[in-house]
């Protein structure tokens, strides 16, 4: 009986947790709320009225579609680049021993530890020095720097659990390198790659800092939103777009969370 009482959460702690959650999520709810306001010049509270017309307005704004399409393309290609490079890098680091291996594994992780502004400035000056004009591809390159890290981190943890003898067993049973990758390595690291890829996509999709330094005239969705906030015209359109961004980034992250959790159970069974 006494242990029951001890297990019960004190009321104070419950309230504190509630306040913490509210602090984290109320601003997001406010953004959602203002997507429905009838007032389009300033965010006054409470909104004078509610309407759905901003969804239609947003739908018909070509600049929104341009920014959205650019962001999706940048995020997709960065993710693909990151998947290839991150997997290769993780395979090299975890399956072989070579001089400078530890240093390289640190260098790969470094971009995500560096402030984005440092990455951005260094990339910008590098592009200037190499006389590469700013374009779609310079944005992709900038995003790939941190996307690779996310994929690498996910893949390397899983690779460590694919013991070297599994690969040898596959070769021993007649599978060449490609078949071994297809039938043994990929099924064992697949969910980790999917999770890493989704996280990378979400990161790239809402990235602002590196993008400001590496983009030319193009505006990705977050950049477009930033610009839009300065102009006092059709402001709720920004909120509508924000809702979309939240959904587009939140769903992959949620999926990634469930995938890696599931994957842990699968690969844990072998040992």
């Amino acid at each position, binding site marked *: 009986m006494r242990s029951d009482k001890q297990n019960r959460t004190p009321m104070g702690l419950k309230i504190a947790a509630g306040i913490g959650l509210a602090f984290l999520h109320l601003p997001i709810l406010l953004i959602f709320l203002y997507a429905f306001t009838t007032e389009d010049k300033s965010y006054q509270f409470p909104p004078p009225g509610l309407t759905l017309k901003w969804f239609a307005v947003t739908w018909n704004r070509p600049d929104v579609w341009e920014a959205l399409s650019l962001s999706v393309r940048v995020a997709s290609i960065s993710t693909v680049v990151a998947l290839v490079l991150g997997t290769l890098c993780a395979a090299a680091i975890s399956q072989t021993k070579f001089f400078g291996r530890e240093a390289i594994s640190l260098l790969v992780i470094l971009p995500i530890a560096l402030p984005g502004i440092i990455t951005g400035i260094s990339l910008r000056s590098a592009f200037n020095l190499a006389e590469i004009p700013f374009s779609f591809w310079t944005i992709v390159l900038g995003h790939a720097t941190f996307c690779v890290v996310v994929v690498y981190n996910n893949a390397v943890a899983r690779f460590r659990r694919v013991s070297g*003898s599994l690969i040898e*067993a596959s070769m021993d049973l007649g599978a060449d390198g490609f078949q071994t990758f297809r039938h043994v390595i990929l099924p064992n690291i697949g969910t980790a790659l999917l999770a890493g890829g989704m996280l990378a996509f979400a990161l790239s999709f809402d990235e602002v800092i590196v993008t400001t330094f590496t983009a030319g005239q193009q505006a990705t969705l977050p950049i477009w939103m930033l610009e839009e906030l300065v102009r006092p015209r059709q402001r709720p359109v920004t909120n509508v777009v924000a809702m979309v961004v939240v959904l587009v980034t939140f769903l992959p992250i949620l999926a990634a969370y469930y995938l890696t959790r599931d994957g842990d159970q699968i690969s844990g069974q072998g*040992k």
Partner: protein
Amino acid sequence: MPYAVSFQQVSRHFGTVRAVDAVDLEIEAGEFFAMLGPSGSGKTTCLRLIAGFEQPTSGHIEIFGETAEGVPPYRRNVNTVFQDYALFPHLNVADNVAYGLMIRGAGKAERTREAEAALEMVKLPGYGARKPGQLSGGQRQRVALARALVNKPKVLLLDEPLGALDLKLREQMQEELKVLQKALGITFVFVTHDQGEALSMADRIAVFNEGRIMQTGTPEEIYRRPRTRFVADFVGSSNVLSPQLTERLAGVAEWSSLRPEDIRLGDESGQDATVTGTSFLGSATRVTLDVSGEKINVLLPSGAPVPSQGESVRFSWDKNALHLMGAGA
């Protein structure tokens, strides 16, 4: 008939370490061959050279008369049972066993049939749907065996396959492996550091030490007539007697070996010794003697009178039991 496996002056060096050093080896087709030695003696590297996971630094390897250098593991008609079994955790038992068939492009029906037959052979019928994680160590070992045998290899390599099993299971598997090998007629090459396992299972044994083969022979030869001090000591912990002691006991100044179970105590015409210790081993008692400064172990069958520590005794042996190994051994 070519040898199943033949090594000619094969070396495998890792930097300055000579893991395998100028090894000559011939394994007959259909033989149960054991590579015996302490860890780091080069026996596993030899196995990996046959499997194709390692390439020789120098020398020549043939498998059934065909040159093996440069041939990748997946093109060799050789399969391995790995020490840690290396079962694929994402596949069920049937798919694990059928993996080699699947890679070869066999149809679903054939794969199912062959996998079930192989599982029956290792006495795990009906286990196909389980995941490796749901099996015990002994069962995983059998699955690994089935997965290798289903490909009908010409040579089956076993890397300490019984090392992780408990004593009772190990003895049972030893017996089953022997029966299986005789029934299938496949050449088995078996790596172990357990001399009892090698002696009881193998047709022939190669004893490895420091990257070299010390002696190759039948279990009987290796046990009765060790050629070097290392073999005498490693295989069955024989007593190794110095040339000085051998000269005193047998009149020849050579290294010699004398098996502990071949020594009798209490013979009045025997040699003098002092008992320095006794230990009860279950089926026998080991008595340690001091003979002019050298240690000699004696195994007494259970029931024989055991002398106490510090007692002076006389010991003797069959004339044939003292085995001379030459001056330089």
